């Protein structure tokens, strides 16, 4: 087993055992979606119009739930030092952690989304684009989220600051992601999915470097 795999599996194991991870994010996702009609009314026509966007925004928020502990837990118990000194570069370590986060938080949300689409009366053409766009878009959330997590790892209760920092930066993902769903429903093809994919690829490719730099500066001070 390579060092990368070791860290990946360890993080996934920890996510499942710490009694959080997937179930917490999915419960949050489900709960907030279920509350929407209480806010906007049960009119199915209205719900179906806002479904795509609401599902996307809520999924993005849910995906960020477990982010603040991404590096903080390891920082607090000395594991981050151990990882930094290992043969695995911090860039690859950050990638492993991002991947573990996506597999244990992002991906379950993707799988849950069509079910919640039913709750909001998402129009039929929207389901596949919803799943595809979330699948491609959530890794970008894990990526920029990892940068935010690394920057805030020394802050007690850093979760709110993390969300404040990360949300504006991922607005392109939200816009293109929701846009993919809306375009499919309304029949307006504007290449949203391609833009979403391009942004995700760029983010996933570049964020390990920014996250690793952030970890380094925190270890050094």
């Amino acid at each position, binding site marked *: 087993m390579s060092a990368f795999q070791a860290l990946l599996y360890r993080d996934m194991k920890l996510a499942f055992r710490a009694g959080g991870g997937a179930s917490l994010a999915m419960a949050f996702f489900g709960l907030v979606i279920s509350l929407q009609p209480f806010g906007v009314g049960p009119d199915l026509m209205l719900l179906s119009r806002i479904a795509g966007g609401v599902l996307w925004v809520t999924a993005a928020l849910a995906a960020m739930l477990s982010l603040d502990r991404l590096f903080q837990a390891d920082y607090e118990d*000395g594991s981050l030092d*151990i990882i930094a*000194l*290992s043969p695995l570069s911090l860039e690859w370590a950050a990638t492993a952690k991002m991947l573990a986060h996506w597999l244990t938080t992002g991906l379950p949300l993707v799988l849950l989304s069509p079910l919640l689409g039913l709750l909001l009366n998402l129009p039929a053409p929207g389901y596949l684009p919803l799943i595809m766009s979330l699948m491609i878009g959530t890794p970008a959330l894990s990526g920029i989220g990892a940068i935010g997590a690394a920057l805030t790892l020394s802050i007690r209760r850093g979760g709110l600051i993390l969300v404040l920092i990360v949300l504006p930066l991922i607005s392109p993902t939200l816009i293109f992601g929701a846009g993919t769903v809306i375009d499919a429903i309304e029949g307006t093809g504007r290449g949203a999915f391609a833009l979403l994919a391009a942004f995700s690829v760029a983010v996933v490719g570049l964020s390990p470097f920014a996250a690793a730099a952030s970890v380094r500066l925190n270890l050094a001070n």
Partner: protein
Amino acid sequence: MAVLSLVEVQDLLCERGGRRVFRNLSFAVATGQTLTLEGPNGAGKTSALRILSGLLPQTAGEVRVHMSAGYVVSDGEERGRLTGWVGHYDGVKGQLSVSENASFFAALYGARVAVQGVLDRVGLSRIADLPAQYLSAGQRKRLSLARLILSGRPLWLMDEPLSSLDAAGRRLTAELIGEHCDAGGIAIVATHETLGLDATRFFLGQA
């Protein structure tokens, strides 16, 4: 082993948060030697170790690791690859069992020795399947020692390794350090207490 021939520190200056922690720190440790860093709290023992490991860049001064192969390593990150680290915090994950923690360290560091044997050596094999959150502080320290062995690194940097350990644990630590140095490694240990083996003592005073 004898991968390293000498670890040399010259005129090291450390400043943190605008405060000067220490300056003009110089010493050298050769193959097979143990150096203890002693001094009052705040003298900078932990900072010195973190600088040696490359985790903390020094404000000024040089750290040079002379390799037996003939070349010199100065870069912080490369020094980190030579370091076996035992810090203040034990790096143990409570939700994983003792052997899961150890296997993780082994895989992360590409250990060439078997995990089971190492757990035997540090006296944890009986409780290998126990979730680490149930370990006593002394047992966690032993797990750190296991990690040190599994890392297979030539330069051991240890920060107060004897704290939380009972007499048996302290003997074990001294034995392991002794074996490591006999095999050609180098150990630099920050400690308040007597290590129980032959070591050069170095005192860090107030800046």
